[in-house]
């Protein structure tokens, strides 16, 4: 098992941090660095190109942060070792997942432990993104949604979002008169959005309450939400209850 080579990419915006990690990795014959990336864009590209087994990922970076990179590469069989200078993210270690966290500067021993852990759990699905982010000591609601659209990366401010509907394994994000599909569960996205502004009104939809024009009663216990752009969305009974709690 240990002899199986892991193809890895190193993602950090600081040159010295990348060099330090590269130097430390020389001692690990089972890890081959196939690419070094200076930012999130490069990382997303490198993952598509090299299809690595392991990614060393800095959290705070220009353009895209580490979590956004993970969202965009959309692979849950990849092993991830986060590296960050300060545990503002409480950095909970997920047992029996191919995830670990390193606090910079880290020792050679700590790095060896991380590699051991992720290779032992290799191939197992990653924890949900919202679970990993929930380890944050000061969780903050999502301010933008990142979506990969072909080779382009869209960054949608949540304030632009009208509503989000579930389409099988995807969510369909409706914003600024357009819509875009993203591979994510509606429940997973719901947990990362500000619960005071985005309400799950139905099993299949989340609405930005600022876009709701009015709520109409169709039949007994059958409500629909009419948005400002005249879109009609079905409201379930529990959805109606949640909506009433926020709107009053």
């Amino acid at each position, binding site marked *: 098992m240990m002899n199986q080579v892991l193809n890895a990419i190193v993602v950090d*915006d*600081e*040159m*010295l*941090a990348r*060099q*330090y990690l590269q*130097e430390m990795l020389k001692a690990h014959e089972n890890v081959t660095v196939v690419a070094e990336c*200076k*930012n*999130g864009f490069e990382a997303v590209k490198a993952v598509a190109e090299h299809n690595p087994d392991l990614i060393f990922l800095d959290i*705070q*970076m*220009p*353009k*895209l*942060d580490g979590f*956004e990179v993970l969202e965009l590469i959309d692979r849950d069989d990849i092993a991830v070792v986060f590296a960050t*200078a*300060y545990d*503002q993210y409480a950095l909970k270690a997920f047992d029996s997942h191919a995830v670990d966290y390193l*606090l*910079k*500067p880290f020792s050679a021993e700590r790095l060896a432990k991380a590699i051991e852990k992720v290779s032992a759990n290799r191939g197992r699905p990653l924890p949900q993104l919202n679970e990993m982010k929930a380890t944050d000591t*000061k969780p*903050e609601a999502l*301010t*933008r949604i990142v979506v990969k659209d072909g080779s382009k990366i869209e*960054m949608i401010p949540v304030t632009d979002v009208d509503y989000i509907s579930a389409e099988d394994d995807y969510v369909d994000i409706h914003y600024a008169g357009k819509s875009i599909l993203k591979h994510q569960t509606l429940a997973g996205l719901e947990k990362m959005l500000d619960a005071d502004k985005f309400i799950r009104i139905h099993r299949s939809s989340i609405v930005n309450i600022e876009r709701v024009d009015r709520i109409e009663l169709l039949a007994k216990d059958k409500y629909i939400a009419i948005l400002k752009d005249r879109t009609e969305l079905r409201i379930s009974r529990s959805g109606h209850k949640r909506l009433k709690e926020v709107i009053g």
Partner: protein
Amino acid sequence: MEKLFRNKATLGFFLAWIPLTALVGVLLHIRGLSWTQAAVLSVAFGIPMSFASASAQYMCKALPLRRSTLTQVVPALVGACIVISGGWTAAFYGICGTTECMAADKLAEVTLFLFMMGDAYFAFSLILHYLIIAMDEARSAEKSADEAIVLGREAELRALRAQVNPHFLFNSLNSIAALVSMDAGRAREMVLLLSEFFRSTLAFGKQKSVTLGEELMLVDKYLKIEAVRFGDKMEVIQDADKACLSLKLPPLLLQPLYENAVKHGVSASLDTVVIKTTVECVKNGVYFTIQNGFEDDAPPRRGTHLGISTTRERLKHFFGEGASMSVKKESGSFTVTLFMPGIGIEESETAL
């Protein structure tokens, strides 16, 4: 006497004696004196009594209620009433008796009446003075409590600023860890820069003020450390008028603005970010400006507002209302400008 009037409360005291003197006049008229007699007598009574009453404040100050016992205060005050009022009435009795200004029985009655009035007035003014003193004390206690809160808050903020920013520390240590095997000389340089920076920060945390020049030297050390981390991603430009570097300001007022510029500008951008400092001396103070580039689509980072509002708060505490601060965020450029009143060009030139 001029000194007595200089105090507004004392002046009020003299004015208050005008209606009281008039009241004595009316009461004397009721007791059978002619209007002329009553007027002359009441003025002759009122003027010296008003001085006596006004100067009763010195007696009250000499015998503060809080620090004196009743056995000290009561006899002294009663004695003073009798001496003051008795002194005047004795003089009146003597003068009026020899000039036979009125019948003997009338004279006795008026004298007794004026003696009682004098006692009552003097006692009344003593009570009034004690009240004024108590009010003043309460007010100044409140004021010094307010000042203590402001000073305490400033000390708290200063201590907070002098604390090590953990992000900065651990990122710097990580750079050193990388440099040790690659470039030992630069690693050592970085260790020395960090030591100097933290030593100055600790020293600043204990001071009430530093000069603008000292603050900018600390900023320079900070930026040198960050330059090791960010390499050519960061460019520093400084245009400081040396004439006003002796301006005093609260320590670590400006350094956090540079931390913000690095955090939201340099570290969150793909391309090179310029941090530009301008110090401009004007007649009545100093304009300090820091400007940095940033990328609109950078991932959200936490906390700037607290840093900015703390700077504003400390600026106002230290310089008062004459100081000002403006924050301008345009696309791609973030600018903070501080105006600190104080040394102007002329003074600074003579000072140098």
